[in-house]
């Protein structure tokens, strides 16, 4: 890319810099020219001198006015957890890991006993705010299971609408499954009859792969574990819909908003298995319905 080091020509600064960086393609020729050429050695000195100037630049702290301007801008941001999608856009959570090391729901489920305690404590705080009074009558509450007692006041609303969620209807549909009461459906507590009314076009190939996690999620304890995994701390999920997102099977899991549980809802679209590292897991935050249950 540089001039050839013909004897008549001096080396360019580019060639000298490449030589110094160890990426010159013709290092041998350049070096032998340099050895015999005072002009080029002078030039190499010029290169070194300007590097020395750079490394001698004084440390320069951020000016106070810039620092306070940035501080103000950050303070105006919504609370941290809302920050995943401050403008309501979908954010892929690729590789999102915090102190939950569990890569998938199987690992998370192993921690259910621990989570149960955390969830019970949390529900003690949130209980009055959570929607739910009516879902119990639908028979969705687990008769048994580690979280049975803890979840009793605010059972998870489990749906299998089979609807196709997308970015446009997400807020409305997610709000709907929080406000409404799911109809009783067979298999809510067991794995039998767990086929969500499929739309044939979208549920062919992926159904087998999806069925494990989708059935597994019907145990509320595992939904709780999943919610805790996604929220990075024990949290009481409000509703789940075994449905579709953009035409592909997905579980729509609704939690209290992470930034403000009173006014926001956190919606996770879980494509296959509950894992905080799934590449296609998406998070969305929507406003809690004002007329919603308290």
């Amino acid at each position, binding site marked *: 890319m540089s001039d050839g080091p013909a004897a008549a020509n001096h080396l360019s600064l580019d060639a000298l810099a490449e030589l110094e960086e160890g990426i010159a393609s013709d290092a041998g020729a350049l070096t032998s020219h340099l050895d015999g050429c005072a002009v080029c050695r002078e030039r190499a000195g010029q290169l070194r001198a300007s590097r020395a100037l750079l490394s001698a630049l004084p440390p320069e702290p951020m000016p106070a006015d810039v620092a306070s*301007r940035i501080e103000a801008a950050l303070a105006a941001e919504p609370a941290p957890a809302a920050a995943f999608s401050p403008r309501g856009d979908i954010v892929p959570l690729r590789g999102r890991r915090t102190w939950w090391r569990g890569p998938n729901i199987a690992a998370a489920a192993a921690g259910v006993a621990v989570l149960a305690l955390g969830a019970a404590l949390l529900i003690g705080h949130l209980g009055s705010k959570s929607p739910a009074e009516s879902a119990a009558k639908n028979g969705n509450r687990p008769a048994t299971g580690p979280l049975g007692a803890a979840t009793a006041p605010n059972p998870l609303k489990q749906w299998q609408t089979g609807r196709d969620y997308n970015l446009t209807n997400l807020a409305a549909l997610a709000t709907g499954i929080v406000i409404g009461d799911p109809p009783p459906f067979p298999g809510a507590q067991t794995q039998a009859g767990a086929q969500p009314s499929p739309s044939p076009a979208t549920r062919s190939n992926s159904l087998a792969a999806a069925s494990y996690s989708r059935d597994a999620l019907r145990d509320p304890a595992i939904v709780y574990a999943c919610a805790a995994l996604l929220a990075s701390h024990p949290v009481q999920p409000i509703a789940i819909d075994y449905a579709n997102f953009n035409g592909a099977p997905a579980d729509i899991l609704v939690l209290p908003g992470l930034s403000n549980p009173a006014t926001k809802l956190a919606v996770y679209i879980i494509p296959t298995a509950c894992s905080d590292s799934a590449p296609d897991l998406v998070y969305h935050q929507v406003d809690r319905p004002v007329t919603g249950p308290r």
Partner: protein
Amino acid sequence: MSGALAELDDRELLARHAAGDRDAFGLVVERHRDRLWRVALRTLGNPDDAADAVQDALLSAYRAAGSFRGDAAVTTWLHRITVNACLDLVRRKASRPSVALDDELDHADDVAAPDLLGERETAAEILAALRQIGPEQAAAVVLVDVEGFPVAQVAEMLDVPVGTVKSRCARGRARLAALLGHLGNPPPAASVEPPNANSDASSPEDDS
């Protein structure tokens, strides 16, 4: 509360932030802002632009902390976001060329005049020269030569192969040497053209 936070490392602070702790991110900013400022200032060569870029970068980091990949060092991650914010800003400005761009170039010509200069003026000249070589080469040179990061880490920050970092450094250093030659200790030998006589610093070798 924040006393306990101060004990945590950056990674833990980001996790706290993502989990809703309102104080955690401020500490991360405090720890890194001076260096991010320097990198942005010297990559862009202009304090106003640097302030905008660092603000954009820290807001992005604030919002994206939940998706921070724990396998990258927080320092690397923040520098990557900052350099991207700088490049974005340059692209945005380039997409609407303005009088300001001409002003900057004129200004750069002014300061390239050889003179006896104090430390402050030297720093200003270096800044002008960095602005002239463009943000990609400037970022590489600043991260390696000024901040002293290893080339491999800079490759991660810039999201380019190690070889690309090296060639950007080499080209950037060559152009800076041409622009700053008059600041070096010995004046250039008479047989070498004064570097600033050649306004296109990318081809300083045409002196046969």
